């Protein structure tokens, strides 16, 4: 089944005001497709966390949402610093975000854990100094 819908976004780095625009747009698109509120919520939150991570850590990147008949795939790709210790980054409460980011309500160390929580499968491909690619799958 190669036939699928694709929504592509460029995530603007270092801009907390526009952060979340892609996720909100995806939410709208999925609603129009008539998907269940539960699926829409999972996809929106997983994608928003990823989007925020790219803004905080990687000066932005790209986001692709692919809608297949049986699943939704979210692919987040950046050319940021990479994740040194993935296992540690997946622990709730672990964060390397700055104080200014924290004052906005982010940096609680829940980004990656939430992405894992709300997706059925998450793959992290990361190389320090090169970038990170995260693929999340939510089954329909």
């Amino acid at each position, binding site marked *: 089944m190669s036939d699928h819908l694709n929504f592509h976004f460029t995530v603007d780095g270092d801009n907390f005001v526009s952060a979340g625009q892609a996720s909100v747009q995806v939410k709208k698109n999925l609603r129009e497709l008539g998907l269940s509120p539960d699926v829409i919520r999972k996809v929106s939150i997983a994608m928003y966390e990823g989007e925020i991570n790219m803004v905080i850590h990687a000066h932005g990147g790209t986001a692709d949402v692919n809608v297949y008949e049986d699943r939704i795939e979210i692919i987040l790709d950046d050319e940021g610093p990479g994740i040194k210790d993935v296992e540690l980054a997946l622990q709730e409460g672990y964060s390397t975000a700055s104080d200014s980011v924290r004052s906005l309500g*982010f940096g609680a160390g829940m980004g990656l854990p939430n992405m894992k929580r709300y997706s059925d499968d998450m793959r992290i491909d990361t190389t320090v100094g090169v970038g990170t690619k995260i693929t999340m799958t939510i089954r329909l």
Partner: protein
Amino acid sequence: MKVTDLVNDLGFAPICMPDPEREIHGCYIGDLLSWVMGRAQADNLWITIMSNVNTVAVASLADVSAVLLAENVTLEESIVQTAELKGVNILSTSLSAYEAAVKLSGAL
């Protein structure tokens, strides 16, 4: 109870209510946005003192019924407009998050 009942029965002040008939089930209190997204349930009333544009995005994505800004926290007019556009209900109160939750608890 409905979002509009928060105004009529509990006396919370409406900041914007694009979806006043929405039902409220349960409540979540928190200011760390990712924490809220991980723990709040859809249709909760979310009580917080965090009031920036990301509050609106989180409320929309986490699909809460409404945001209640505690302790007289205010919201910039441009953010109110964003909330209106995104269909996010926002109210405010002079009560603390705890006091507001206690009041809500008696009504839910």
